[in-house]
């Protein structure tokens, strides 16, 4: 399988390309990036061709799939063009920044017979899978509620520009957890209430977001999507999912398999992740799906439904009341 990276605007691209390199039957044949300096130096490092314009890259025959890591607003055009060019697509989350564009993307991949997977690596965490198995085997009793966080440090750059990211912390950090909750419950969000604001940093987007969700099956959940980790925090952030069931409580801290590391040269303390490489597991799964012609495990529709909750949260901030889903577009 031959793949290409479309843009390194999202820093996850640096991890994804490393993961692709580790997979024996995958070859990275090209990189496209609007940022010529960034793209060229990466193309040199990985020994691939470089294109400033991704449309030129898509004309190449020796590209079976693309990984889209552009700014959120650019996902739509890149995914549709890639589908037209007959390339399978792994697209960074969130799928896009509004529902019409996400639907156009899903329509395009269906029309041109390619696959679109949304990059939700948390689905591939061994802990997350372990709990999914326990739910499926009904070991935990009926689920009653969730209390979740996806915290991070304020990322800066285009992430805080609404015109490029489609929002701030809520757009960035709602969807990972939301995807897991939908997967666990087999139910969609029916009401979303949110509080959110710019409270911690001097940035043009919200840095704090507390979402309250009621699912169609009556189960309720909260997601704290805030960029609330200080710069001095010992790790990038967290994905924590606490689940209350008939039989008790399961607390899952997806990124807490860590070492404590203290270093005098940098006068810093940090937590070093030794857990599973979820990006690698996700990409292996994606490659295996497209190679064997199986449907991908995390679809464009999954991406759309997770993003819809973030969009509902923004509407709730305006209305100061719960918003009913599905959203009218």
């Amino acid at each position: 399988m031959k793949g290409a990276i479309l843009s390194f605007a999202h820093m996850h691209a640096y991890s994804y390309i490393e993961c692709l390199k580790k997979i024996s039957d995958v070859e990275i044949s090209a990189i496209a990036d609007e940022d010529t300096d960034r793209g060229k130096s990466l193309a040199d490092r990985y020994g691939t061709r470089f294109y400033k314009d991704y449309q030129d890259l898509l004309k190449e025959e020796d590209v079976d799939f693309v990984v889209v890591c552009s700014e959120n607003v650019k996902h739509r055009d890149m995914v549709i063009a890639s589908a037209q060019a007959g390339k399978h697509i792994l697209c960074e989350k969130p799928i896009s920044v509004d529902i019409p564009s996400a639907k156009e993307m899903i329509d395009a991949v269906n029309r041109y017979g390619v696959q679109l997977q949304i990059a939700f690596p948390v689905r591939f965490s061994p802990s997350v899978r372990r709990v999914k198995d326990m739910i499926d085997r009904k070991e935990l009793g009926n689920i009653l509620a969730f209390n979740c966080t996806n915290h991070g440090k304020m990322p800066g750059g285009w992430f805080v520009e609404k015109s490029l990211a489609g929002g701030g912390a809520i757009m960035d950090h709602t969807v990972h957890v939301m995807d897991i909750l939908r997967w666990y419950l087999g139910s969609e969000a029916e009401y979303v209430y949110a509080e959110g604001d710019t409270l911690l940093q001097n940035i043009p987007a919200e840095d704090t977001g507390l979402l309250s969700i009621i699912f169609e099956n009556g189960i309720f959940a909260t997601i704290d999507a805030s960029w609330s980790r200080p710069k001095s925090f010992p790790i990038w952030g967290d994905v924590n999912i606490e689940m209350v069931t008939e039989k008790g409580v399961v607390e899952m801290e997806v990124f807490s398999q860590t070492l404590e590391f203290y270093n005098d040269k940098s006068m810093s303390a940090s937590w070093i992740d030794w857990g599973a490489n979820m990006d690698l597991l996700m990409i292996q799964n994606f490659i295996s799906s497209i190679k064997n012609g199986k449907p991908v495990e995390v679809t464009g529709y999954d991406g759309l439904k997770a993003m819809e909750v973030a969009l509902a949260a923004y509407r709730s901030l305006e209305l100061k009341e719960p918003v009913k889903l599905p959203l009218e577009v």
Partner: protein
Amino acid sequence: MLRVGIIGAGVMGRTHAECWSRLEDVKIQVVCDVQVERAEALSRTYNCDVSTSADDVIKRSDIDIVDICTPTPFHSEIAVSALEKGKHTLCEKPVARNLESARKVVKTAREVDVKFMTAHVVRFFPEYVTARNLIDQGAIGIPRMARTKRGGQYPLGRWNDWFSDVDMSGGCLVDTGIHDFDYLRWIFGDVERVYASALTWRRLEHKDYGLVTLRFKSKAMAQVEIIWAQPPGTPFNTGFELIGTDGLIAYNSQDSSSLRIMVSNGDNIVQRAESPLTESPYLTEIRHFVSCIEENKEPSVTPEDAYKALEVAIASLESARINRPVSVGGDI
């Protein structure tokens, strides 16, 4: 010598009695409970009188302090009577089950010349006090966000299973959430609105759980979690994160205990964590109340604080019922 009458000999009455007994210039004069055997058990330990009537205790001329440790719905009426009879009054939280009753307590407390305090004991727990002192010193810049967690197993084995009756206890949000509402008010000031989800209204047997989002007048926001859903035997656990413009303070009781005990006595295997202190926060709280009486000072938890914490709790319970945000901040 201050003489105290304890009304209610349940879990909190027993906890308080032990604390009162440690103070040198205080005597437990009488313990009262409708279940006389519970009062008698305490009277044997502390060598005091027994009563089954709160009214009789309040009327006694040899009582200086009334300590109300009854189930919630009886707090306010006893408090008002005790204050009117000129007794210093320490009242378990919540000060009342509804705002109208709480208002009467506040009004009475402000009219009389004795001390009144609601036992918001979290303000005396060293981890919570240390965090607030750090914030006071500007350690995290301007405090803007919080997450709190409190709970464990369902409170079982109480008089008439009164915690199961939402009209009496208010469920986990009113009974237990009020601790965090009070603590967060202590740091962030008055609350503007709340949104809550809870199992309370589903009336599941011996299971309750609530999640409350608070928005403060200062624009700060907080997520409060109250758990009465862990299996029996789970130790009580708490945690918080306090986040400001310059930093974050985090605490989790499960991670910061100083003792882990793993021993076997024959077939009996003991595995537990402990976190011993120089003195119980309940004793610190009662010491503070006594010092306010002796030195004629205002207790650190004011009647208005007790009212406002209850107001947040009642608003949360209502929000969970109607699935809509509820405004807080009416006049007392």
